[in-house]
């Protein structure tokens, strides 16, 4: 074929051809080994995956890999749809032996060696549906409430741990509220300086437009009081004061 280079697959045949045409003095020492342990099939089409494909009737689509689906997937989407912030919790997905899930007993929601997670809720729910013959909704409620209880306990532990740490002399960095307030203050100061600069610019522009004497916008408090109490100044000669 044009696009493919089969020389790596055909090393043994090439060696034999070279030896037969006396290009090399002897067969290579791996000749028997590659003969005894032949390479696997390459570029072989996989077995028929979907005998009756749903959408495409094209033959090429019938041999493509199929999605892997589990019954827990629906339960997972339901749980994480109701509790989206559980997706933000950090997860450790490193497996120890590969058989980690073998020793789990889902008659309890907390398993040794496994984080309390949305996954444990789903597995507990499935166990209740299969072993206690509860409906999906009932099992979901039972598992969910156990999960909430354990999360509440975790919260209490966290709060008590912080109090104990503060008591024996620990100090913490700035909390999110403090950091937020600082950012807001900084933004406010920036805005204030920008706004005062804008005011100055506008006044300078206005001063350029009018050529008359400029009245001072700010006067001292005593002058202001004096201006207000200046009743004795008549508007015109002979007119009574206002």
């Amino acid at each position, binding site marked *: 074929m044009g696009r*493919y*280079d*089969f*020389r*790596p*697959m055909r*090393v043994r045949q*090439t*060696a034999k051809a*070279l030896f037969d045409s006396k290009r090399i*003095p*002897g067969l*290579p*020492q*791996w000749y028997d*080994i*590659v003969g*005894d*342990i032949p*390479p*696997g*099939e*390459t*570029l*072989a*089409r*996989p077995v028929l995956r979907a005998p009756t494909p749903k959408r495409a009737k094209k033959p090429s689509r019938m*041999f*493509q*890999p*199929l*999605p*892997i689906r589990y019954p827990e997937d629906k339960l997972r989407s339901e749980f994480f749809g109701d509790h989206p912030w559980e997706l933000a919790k950090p997860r450790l997905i*490193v*497996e*120890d*032996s*590969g*058989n980690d899930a073998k020793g789990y007993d889902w008659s309890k929601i907390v398993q040794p*060696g496994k984080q309390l997670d949305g996954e444990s809720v789903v597995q507990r729910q499935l166990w209740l549906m299969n072993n206690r013959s509860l409906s999906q909704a009932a099992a979901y409620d039972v598992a969910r409430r156990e999960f909430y209880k354990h999360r509440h306990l975790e919260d209490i532990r966290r709060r008590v741990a912080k109090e104990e740490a503060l008591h*024996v*002399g620990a100090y913490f960095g700035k909390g999110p509220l403090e950091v937020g307030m600082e950012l807001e203050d900084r933004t406010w100061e920036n805005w204030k300086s920008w706004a005062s600069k804008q005011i100055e610019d506008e006044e300078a522009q206005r001063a350029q437009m009018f050529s008359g004497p400029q009245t001072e916008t700010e006067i001292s408090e005593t002058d202001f009081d004096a201006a207000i109490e200046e009743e004795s100044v008549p508007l015109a000669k002979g007119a009574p004061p206002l």
Partner: protein
Amino acid sequence: MIIRHVAARGSYRALVQNRLKQFRRFFSEVTSIEATADSSVNQLQALEGQLNSQTAFSVPTASPDTQAAPLSGSVAEQYHKFKHLEKHFGHLGSDISPHYQPHALLNNPPSPADVTLELLLAAEAHQGHLTSLWNPANARYIQGIRQGVHIISLEVTAAHLRRAAKVVQEVSRRGGLVLFVGTRDGQDRAVVKASQMAKGYHLFERWIPGSITNGQQILGKCRTKVVNEKDEEVPGFEEQLYDRPVLRPDLVVCLNPLENYVLLHECALNNIPTIGVIDTNADPTWVTYPIPANDDSIRCIQVIAGVLGRAGQAGQKQRLAAAQQGHITYRAARDLRLPEEVEEAISPEVMNKLEEGMLDDGNGLDEKLDQVRNRERSGRTLKQMD
């Protein structure tokens, strides 16, 4: 305030350390170790007096000798003390087993018989790439699609890995040169360990293009040696080795074929069988023995390299055991003569890496060889100058 609370709880050591830290803040000069030890001992004694006056129970006194002992003991004493403590207290605490220990895969890799689907799953060998980035030639190796990525079938991986391990074992048993190549970050330790076990060669930096096709230029200055069947070097062949062509590997194991296309192409041009870790976006026709697995996971690479290294180790053991019995499992090198050039010295006991028949001198080949050697020798002195 704080002192009374903590002392009432009974944590004497924390209290002492707290107070010592406060005192140490006022040290402006740099003092020697003994001076600080003496001053801290004095502070300790002052503190003891204070506590004894305040609290109901009497605080045990600390003598300066016990305080100064850990500082002035010799290294050997400290080591023995550490070992003693480890023996008595090392087993305390919780035991998490079976626990993933990253160093165990490098220091004690699994053998081909230990390859299980669970091991490959834990090593994340099943993780392929995005479905849109696949190479359809790998369709046979793929189990299905999950979360938008292809999942490699672990049974297929295990079968191909065992096959490749058998090839490495047989090539090692027949005394072939195996080259382990892994040029990505984090693959160097696995590659080196595998080559050490299989008594092969390793490469974890960039492959210099032309090392096989233009080998005489690039690798011509590398030292070669003649070894006997027990892997002992046999001296006296330097003249003959100087004229010989550069060595080529008999088998190349590549842990990241996507970055090493040039190496694999050179092997194909020179008819060298190759083994490679083929991901879902890699081309399986580039290598002779593909191992469909995840080449982006360092844990998976360590498992695969470890298994192949162990197979090579087994092959080497078989070869040396056969050599001890007197049975050589490989063909000797061609065109090598004994350094003494004495025909009657070849006895059945002297089993060097030689052919049985000597070169025939009848057609004046010997003179020609001498001429070539003289010319080469003058060239050699020039070469040694740079």
